[in-house]
């Protein structure tokens, strides 16, 4: 590593090696651009190291155990023992395999890798500072930059992540023992996914949520099976409360939850206030109330790049910021903060820099929640469609009518498809149930291709599969489903 101040140059500087940044870098390399990827921590970013991958690994592993433990109906009697350190080291092995894969893929695509923290010096220069062994810094001149610095968990007042019993999602994915009890603050997708993991590991979980339901933003009918199963797992919910403080009366900690619109806010009596305030004695508290862009540690101003007041870098359909040769992709460029959104933007930015006619013009952007059961959505809901001026028709198919779902012992949920009545173009879909995350792919393709209900309904789907439910939902919207009654 270079110590001191050396100036080198690159055509494309990519800052951050998460799924937005490393994909941008690989694609740029494939397009024969001279590209340098700077990462301060670990290849693969949040997603591979502390997000998508470790969470899905633990979700799947706890499901294997939970599935076998609750299969008496199927004639299976098992009492699986989970050794958390074994599970975590397996998960770490998966992460290592993927992150070292990312590193290899970057190299194989001629991406120069640089470890360090990048900050902007001016419109065409960045400083890369190295900590640890190769301490020091260097300057890097660039023709184009792609900012892909991602996001970090939002902290709430009085719950500093530095205090041991207060953890964020990253720490929750790396615990070395199963807590007896846990408060999860926030019933968004990250909170709900981790709540299930811990409930399946045997932790007593209480979820505290400011709003009046889980998974804000999702339709009620999609949430219902998830809420039901969470209840079945013994997860407790405290809605319309915020976690206001915590202290350590004894071995456990005490988390105080205040009502959002309660007596206190309404100037009620001391008794009324006390009655609504909850004290939860638990071992740990996981704060998962959302994520904020990492844009304040980059000296963006030095390059003239603007953000909105949440710190999100504003971009156009070419992933360009207000500064023409600087791009922003992934979480730092705003919602939806999802890995595949970032990868798509990263790919687009690289192609635009290479002069290709690329644009962010996807019609379909899926979102998946890996709760039990999973939720997956794409495109417009019925309400969205109405608001956009469409005349939507909706088709639905319940998994309890699916032969394949019944043979897996998991038949809660449904597939719903929304289309324009007049011409049948598919506008959106939502699925809650088994393999929702995989089933949504067909509907993404349908929307992207401009398919109609008839196209989906006339495509032969293999029997017995869950994907037949997609076809049946389309047939239902057309009024001639075979395996469910039509509207």
């Amino acid at each position, binding site marked *: 590593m270079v110590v001191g101040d050396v100036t080198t140059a690159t055509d494309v500087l990519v800052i951050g090696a998460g799924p937005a940044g490393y994909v941008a870098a690989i694609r740029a390399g494939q397009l024969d651009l001279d590209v340098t990827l700077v990462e301060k921590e670990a290849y693969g970013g949040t997603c591979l190291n502390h997000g998508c991958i470790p969470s899905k690994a633990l979700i799947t592993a706890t499901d294997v155990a939970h599935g076998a433990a609750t299969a008496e109906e199927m004639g299976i009697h098992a009492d699986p023992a989970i050794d958390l350190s074994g599970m975590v080291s397996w998960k770490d092995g998966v992460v290592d395999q993927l992150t070292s894969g990312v590193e290899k893929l970057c190299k194989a695509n001629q991406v120069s890798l640089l470890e360090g923290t990048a900050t902007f010096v001016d419109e065409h220069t960045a400083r890369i500072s190295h900590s640890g062994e190769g301490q020091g810094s260097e300057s890097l001149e660039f023709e184009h930059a792609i900012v892909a610095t991602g996001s970090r968990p939002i902290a709430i007042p009085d719950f500093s992540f530095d205090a041991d019993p207060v953890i964020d999602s990253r720490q929750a994915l790396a615990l070395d023992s199963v807590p007896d009890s846990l408060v999860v603050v926030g019933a968004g997708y990250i909170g709900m996914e981790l709540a299930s993991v811990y409930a399946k590991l045997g932790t007593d979980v209480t979820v505290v949520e400011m709003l009046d339901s889980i998974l804000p933003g999702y339709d009620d009918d999609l949430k219902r099976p998830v809420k039901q199963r969470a209840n079945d797992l013994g997860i407790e919910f405290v809605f319309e409360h915020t976690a206001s403080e915590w202290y350590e009366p004894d071995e456990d900690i005490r988390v105080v939850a205040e009502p959002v619109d309660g007596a206190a806010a309404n100037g009620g009596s001391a008794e009324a206030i006390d009655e609504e305030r909850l004290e939860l004695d638990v071992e740990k508290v996981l704060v998962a109330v959302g994520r904020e862009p990492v844009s304040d540690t980059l000296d963006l101003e030095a390059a003239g790049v603007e953000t909105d007041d949440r710190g999100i870098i504003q971009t156009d359909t070419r992933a360009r910021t207000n500064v023409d040769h600087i791009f922003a992709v992934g979480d730092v*460029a705003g919602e939806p903060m999802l890995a595949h959104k970032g990868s798509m933007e990263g790919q687009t930015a690289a192609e635009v820099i290479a002069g290709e006619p690329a644009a962010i013009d*996807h019609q379909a952007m899926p979102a998946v929640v890996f709760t039990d059961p999973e939720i997956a959505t794409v495109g*417009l809901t019925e309400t969205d469609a109405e608001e956009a001026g469409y005349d939507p028709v909706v088709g639905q198919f319940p998994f309890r009518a699916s032969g394949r779902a019944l043979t897996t012992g998991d038949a809660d949920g449904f597939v719903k498809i929304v289309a324009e009545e007049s*011409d*049948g173009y598919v506008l959106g879909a939502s699925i809650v149930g088994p393999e929702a995350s995989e089933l949504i792919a067909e509907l993404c393709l349908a929307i*992207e291709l401009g398919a109609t209900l008839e196209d989906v309904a006339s495509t032969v789907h293999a029997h017995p599969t869950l994907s037949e439910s997609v076809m049946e939902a389309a047939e239902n919207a057309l009024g001639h489903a075979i395996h469910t009654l039509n509207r």
Partner: protein
Amino acid sequence: DTEETGTPQDRVFVPPRLRRKAREDGLDLSSVRGSGPGGRITAADIRAASAADDGGQETPD
């Protein structure tokens, strides 16, 4: 902005390969008339529109 929602006016039901072709040719898809089934925009419609844009002749299929 990656908002995917559109209005019936600006939503075009055209597969990615043709959207890219239109961008290559600098065409605004919302101005292309679709001749396919249900008013779908076809590859030929895009070729015709770019030819017209260039003031050139449409090349026959």
